[in-house]
């Protein structure tokens, strides 16, 4: 089975990080999992990588939460879109939120960088369809 080389999880919830880590380990969905607990530290990482020109460090898939302290998911996306032209590697961005608010779903649709909006909890079924999307 094909898998995600590097998975990037941006979420302030440590229990969620744990379930993602465990699910990925159990099914062997990803080679490596990178964890960020808010948007700011994540965007810092991305801009560092762009400056170092070390694209091999970039993830293939980002799972992005919306509600986070310091820099939330929307603000992260804004900054990420500015960085995107400097990145050659294809990266799939998924919003993963517990919000079922119509407003959030609509807003996500307007951002072309976002592949899909997944509602928590994230399960192995989600990962399988993400991997299908990668191929």
């Amino acid at each position, binding site marked *: 089975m094909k898998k995600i080389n590097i998975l990037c999880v941006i979420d*302030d*919830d440590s*229990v*969620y990080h*744990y*379930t993602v880590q*465990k*699910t990925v380990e*159990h099914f062997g969905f990803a080679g490596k999992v990178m964890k960020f*607990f*808010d948007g700011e530290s994540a965007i810092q990482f991305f801009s560092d990588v762009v400056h170092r020109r070390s694209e091999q460090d970039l993830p293939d898939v980002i799972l992005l939460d919306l*509600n986070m*302290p*310091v820099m939330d998911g929307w*603000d992260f996306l804004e900054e990420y879109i500015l960085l995107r032209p400097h990145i050659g590697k294809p990266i799939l961005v998924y919003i993963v939120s*517990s*919000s*079922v*608010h119509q407003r959030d779903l609509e807003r996500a649709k307007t951002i072309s960088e976002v592949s899909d909006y997944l*509602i*928590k*909890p*994230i*399960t*192995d079924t989600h990962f399988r369809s993400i991997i299908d999307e990668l191929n």
Partner: protein
Amino acid sequence: MASASLDSSYLELIINQSPDMICKYSLDKKIIFINETVHRAGGQVPQFYVGKSIYDFGYPPDFLKSFESGFDACARTKQVTSVQIHVPMGAFANTHFIITFVPILISQQGEDKLIGIFSVSRNATKEIEYNNLQKEKIEELQILSQRLIRKANKLQDFAHIVSHNLRSPISNLAGLFKLYDHATNDEERAEIIGFMKKTFYSLGQTIEDLNEVVKINQHVEVKIEKLYFVDILLHVQESISLSIVETDTLIECDFSACDAVQYNKAYMESIMLNLLTNAIKYRSPERRPHVRFFSYLKDNIVHLVCKDNGLGINLQKHGHKIFGLHKTFHGNQDARGVGLYITKNQIEAMGGTISVESIEGEGTTFTLQLTIPPINEEN
């Protein structure tokens, strides 16, 4: 015998029996004629009026001003003009009149020449008072509907908050249950159970927080008493003295401008505790934390201010959610994001408001308008 025109002898009858008061004026506002209705209603003989100027009766300036505006407009335009006048005194005290001014014109060398003005005054007190009452009622209804809209919005917000804050721990639990099913050894299972416990505990916390908000908004009779700000602050300081000492926080207060408020004690304690813990929690690592409380009276409303020199917050970015439940901004470990939401609800339940000003990197100022509830003498 049918006639298209009216016998002029009837005109006098109609004029004198009319319920409206009819006067004729010269151009300098002297009364030349009044119908019987005027002296019947005013209880004066015709001589009391005729020959006198409108300015000779001691009418108040407001009345004369309205009268003049109608009279002069009629004289200027040679058109029928109506004004509404309220008589505050005399025989017609508290009476509203609609006065219609009719120009008396004669044709002279092909031009209309004004020689006098008739006024027809109709007592419109009932309809005007009724209209005013209607207006008042409409205003009342508008206020009521605004209040209901606010209440409905608040309920909807609360429903979202409940839904969102319950969803995240529940989805975590669902994820953990799934992991449990896949777990291959006891060690893993124990770890998962540990996370379940943690999640379950936070779910319980969330429900407690939400219950607190429901309680505040139920408007159960809260006891109001006279509270001295300094007493409450001392009590609050005592309860968190450990974290004050550990962080070396300097707390200052000045309640000299307004030393007390009629308020609910538990609310005031909770409000001051939240403001203080908030200031300490979001202190700047670059300087000694400094929190200043002061109060003042403005427009008869007691204001309480809490000013700190902490991290500050970008209000343009976060302003709309600063008083939301479970919103934290600085990635602080012990931030549960409960305090300000509860504080806001307590203040609003008492009829007050809370506002915030902040400069990132300099500090935050919370200003509370504590609307004073009426003093209950029995308490």
